[in-house]
């Protein structure tokens, strides 16, 4: 298994336009998930300068909550209520649950340490991450749980016919765009638009922006800093919970460890897009998703991870503040 440098061009030619479109579609779907996770990271980092390692695990818990709701109504392939309300219910319950979890984490693990050195906060975040991951492992065991979303609502599950989620909706250059991928893309965009409106137009959004700029000044203006921070965590975790359910619907297999790499990629996406910038997180997420998809498709599993790391490191070196981030002025 040697260096595929020259064979990359062969692969690109072989896969042709169909392959390129297929990889683009995959990258978009995956990238939407990363974007949602990145939004949570970027909001928390903007307001607390904290790298919340536990965010990926909130995403994982969201996926499990969605699984619980799905099974409470009979599970795949034939649940006891109609598919659409079931999915909406899964989203709502998982988002609320994840939001509450995020608030609890902030309240008990991070609030007592406000003002501590960065390293201390990071280590605490790591500790919370271990705690969450292994609690899920203790409660649910190590085996994968499956949404079985491929057959969800299928007329003929025995013949392995795809259910409505995986039915192709339209075709471009010979590539099927499945319903679930479009749902994920649309929902992510809707959530991101909602978030942007929230931050830009509402009072809470103004308070969040003010607190992110300067805690003390915001407090002096009468803003309840604790509540604003709690709200930020809530919003970020709600998005992560939504991403978790989307993951379950697209990829089916969930287990306690799924948050680790997703969280890592999500944070990278946030950093690449510019930490503290919401459009940056979205852009970063899509970028990471596309890079991963194309690297896997054109370079193959041996080099794809390294290529993704290398590209992200280069972006960070060339523009340390990210693509859309503001130039950070260090106060002395």
């Amino acid at each position, binding site marked *: 298994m040697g260096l595929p440098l020259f064979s990359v061009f062969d692969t690109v030619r072989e896969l042709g336009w169909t392959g390129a479109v297929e990889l683009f579609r995959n990258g978009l779907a995956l990238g939407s998930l990363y974007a949602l996770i990145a939004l949570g990271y970027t909001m928390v980092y903007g307001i607390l*300068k904290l790298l919340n390692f536990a965010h990926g695990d909130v995403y994982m818990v969201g996926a499990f909550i969605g699984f619980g709701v799905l099974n409470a109504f009979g599970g795949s392939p034939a649940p006891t209520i109609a598919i659409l309300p079931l999915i909406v219910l899964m989203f709502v319950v998982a988002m609320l649950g994840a939001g509450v979890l995020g608030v609890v984490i902030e309240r*008990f693990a991070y609030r007592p*340490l406000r003002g501590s*050195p960065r390293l201390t*906060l990071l280590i605490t975040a790591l500790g919370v991450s271990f*705690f969450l991951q292994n609690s899920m492992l203790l409660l649910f065991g190590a085996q994968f749980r499956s949404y079985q979303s491929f057959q969800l609502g299928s007329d003929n599950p025995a013949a392995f016919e795809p259910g409505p989620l995986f039915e192709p909706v339209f075709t471009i250059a010979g590539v099927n765009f499945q319903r679930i991928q479009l749902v994920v893309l649309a929902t992510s965009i809707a959530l991101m638009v909602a978030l942007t409106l929230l931050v830009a137009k509402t009072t809470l959004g103004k308070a969040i922006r003010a607190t992110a700029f300067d805690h003390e000044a915001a407090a002096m203006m009468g803003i309840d800093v604790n509540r604003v921070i709690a709200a930020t965590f809530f919003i970020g975790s709600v998005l992560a919970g939504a991403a978790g359910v989307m993951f379950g619907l697209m990829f089916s297999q969930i287990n306690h460890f799924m948050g680790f790499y997703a969280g890592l990629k999500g944070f990278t996406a946030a950093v690449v897009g510019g930490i503290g910038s919401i459009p940056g997180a979205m852009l970063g997420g899509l970028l990471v998703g596309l890079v991963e998809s194309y690297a896997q498709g054109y370079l193959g599993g*041996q080099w794809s*991870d390294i290529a993704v*790391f290398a590209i992200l490191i280069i972006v*960070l070196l060339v523009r340390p503040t990210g693509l859309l981030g503001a130039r950070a002025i260090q106060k002395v």
Partner: protein
Amino acid sequence: MGSESDRPVLPEPDGPQVGVDEWVASAERLRDRPTGAAGVLRRAEQVVTPPIQLAIFAGLAALVPFWLGTGDLFTYGIFVLLYVLLGLGLNTIVGFAGLLDLGYVAFFGFGAYMYAILSSDHYGIHWPAIVTVPLVVVTTASLGLLLGIPSRRLLGDYLAIVTLFFGQAFVVFVNATNPVVAGTGLTGGPNGIADIDPLRFFGLEASTRTQQYYVLLVSAVLILTGLHFLSESRTGRALRSLREDPLAAGAIGIPVNRLKLLAFSIGAGIAGFTGCIFGTLLTAVTAGNFDIPILITIYAVVILGGFGSLSGVVLGSLVITVSFQFLAPENPQNNARVLFYTLIGIVIVLLVRSWWRVALVLAATVALGLVVQTIVEAVAPSWTGGPVVEGGRLGDVIEGWVVIPEGHPDFGSVAYVALVVAVLALTQLRRSRRIFALPAVAYLAAVVWETSFVLQPAVARWILFGALLVVLMNVRPQGLLGTPRVEIV
């Protein structure tokens, strides 16, 4: 060894001083003098200076192979020293210079693989150790230098991510990429490189565990000495000021970038050296030896011992290695059980200040347990009387005290969730009210142990480790022997 006291203990003056209010000065001295265990430790540090500490450590450690058999020597002796070395390297980067390096274990792996490639059957190259080891150290240090170059532009958390990527990239490269060089895969893929030569110089060979132990011990002593000198020198002081506030350090003329590179190089060099020895210990290396769990263990050693403290690294390594082994699934569960109950006891002691109150709480816990047990036995006997997992001699005592239901497999999970909620609620209670809730929570913890944790000890260990990190950062972020830091943002 290298842990500096942040407040000098001033000697008592032997006569009246001009311009000093005696009464105020003596009151201040009394207030500043640390009390309790920390005070004893600090005063002991004045007497037992680092060279004496090193001598004691080296002396005791040299005698260890005479006490322990081969198996225990490997587990307790060699592993401890291995993590001491790795912790020292990480301490240089994170503790001395304040650079968060999450890819440190890649240097360790790089050193091990490079040594393996140069001294094994893989390519048939069998260079002598006297050539290979220095070459590997220099190359790994250069790699550290290379990695340090981007650190100039990247602030704390960004550097963490980039170094984490580097660490993961190493594992992926070694495991999956494995490019074909000179006919064979360079790193051997998932099977790694086997049949690594033992360390050989001047006709002496380190092939038994005792010999390898002494090699590690001498290396550790030398590196400890070197780092101590570094820490006490001008460079060490400059590194400390870099750690505390990079901007201020740069403003007063300290070559911040050069120091960062130096820290990375030294830390990487130490890791590379340890990697060589590691390869000879196992005679084969694979990617799994250099992945995230190892990184976490090294960090645990340095966090527990205290960043910036050399003796802390030694202590941290001892505590972590011994306790992990003590809690391993191979040992009877009673080890872990005793440790857990002791932990509950320690928590009670730390939360409740006076001794008679502690006794009261413990008595209340025991009484509560007996009361609950009696009630449950009378009302719903199926909810108690379950088997105590590997109880040994303590089994009968526990069976009579803890409610262990039989045939209700989900009880453990529910109890665990209840315990987490109870502990969180406990932290919110006022101190005076806490004492009333404490016996119930302690008893609940015992129930959770017997019905849930003891069945999955490895998972319980990680849960407790995570909780310990959070608590440690809240209570004593500087670790056991470190110095408290204040970050000016």
